[in-house]
């Protein structure tokens, strides 16, 4: 889901954007009301997360202006003031939900998911491929119901490959996107982590299970995530 976060507090705004991106959303962040309106005119997101106290144009002014546009965007308002009248005003101006600060990031995402369900858009909290299931919120993985303990980096690598199942992921792309290292860097960290991941994915299989490789090597190019053969009972 495309999300625009409008929050003047740099730490909070960047963490909300980071957390939403981790969950697979296409999230952007701006820090004032005018920048928000400019961004919205260029690219309408499916969800707007809008702080009320903003420089240049406050959140209520932004809401009032959006109300005059034809838009299908959902809006969650963030406020630090425990003021019922203000929340009522925001809801009447078109906000779908209000969240009082300080809030839990998990509550914010649960409310965003609730809004997405009402829109008819599902936000995947899990990724599954064949017998592999990945819970993107708790960062847990199961293969045929057997849990697999992965480190943060191993999980990120697996998620990256599952989202591109069937496609070859080059070492350069993996280095750039997961390690933020330039492709020219001399390092075998990708191969090392792919090996760690392969061992853990195979290790999760019970005895007698078919250990067909989930991660295939594409010679001279990189790696590809493939479908597992069914287990033989």
């Amino acid at each position, binding site marked *: 889901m495309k999300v625009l976060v409008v929050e003047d*507090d740099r*730490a*909070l705004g960047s*963490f*909300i954007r*980071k*957390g939403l991106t*981790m969950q697979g959303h296409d999230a952007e962040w701006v820090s004032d009301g005018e920048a928000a309106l400019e961004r919205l005119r260029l690219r309408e997101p499916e969800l707007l997360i809008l702080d009320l*106290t903003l420089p240049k144009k406050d959140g209520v002014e932004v809401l009032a202006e959006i109300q005059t546009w034809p838009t299908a965007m959902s809006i969650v308002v*963030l406020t*630090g*003031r*425990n*003021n019922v009248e203000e929340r009522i005003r925001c809801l009447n101006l078109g906000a779908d939900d209000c969240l*009082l*600060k*300080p*809030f*839990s*990031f*998990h509550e914010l995402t649960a409310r965003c998911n609730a809004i997405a369900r009402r829109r008819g858009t599902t936000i995947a909290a899990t990724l599954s491929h064949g017998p592999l299931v990945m819970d993107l*919120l*708790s*960062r847990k993985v199961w293969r045929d119901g057997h849990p697999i303990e992965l*480190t*943060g*980096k191993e999980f990120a690598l697996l998620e990256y490959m599952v989202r591109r199942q069937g496609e070859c992921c080059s070492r350069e792309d993996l280095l750039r996107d997961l390690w933020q290292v330039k492709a020219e860097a001399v390092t075998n960290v990708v191969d090392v982590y792919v090996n760690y991941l392969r061992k853990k994915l195979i290790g999760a299989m019970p005895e007698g299970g078919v250990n067909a490789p989930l991660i295939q090597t594409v010679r001279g190019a990189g790696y590809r995530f493939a479908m597992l053969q069914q287990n033989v009972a």
Partner: protein
Amino acid sequence: MNPIRVESAEDRFACVEKELHHLAQPLSSLQCRLEIGLLLAVDAATRETLQESMAELKRVIAAFSRVREVAASALQSRSA
């Protein structure tokens, strides 16, 4: 001659509410950091530290919420 500033109780409660509003920002930011940190934590020691920090933060937020309620109801009863 400088005018004498008499701060009414209403002014003081409004000032408290304003400061609480400012405090809500870093508390939100800290809560988000710890929750996202827990999602990414690799080793058990880090997870334990983050969980303990989260538990302490929840106590701070609970106290913050109580102070906010008191300030809000004091302001309301003053303006009633």
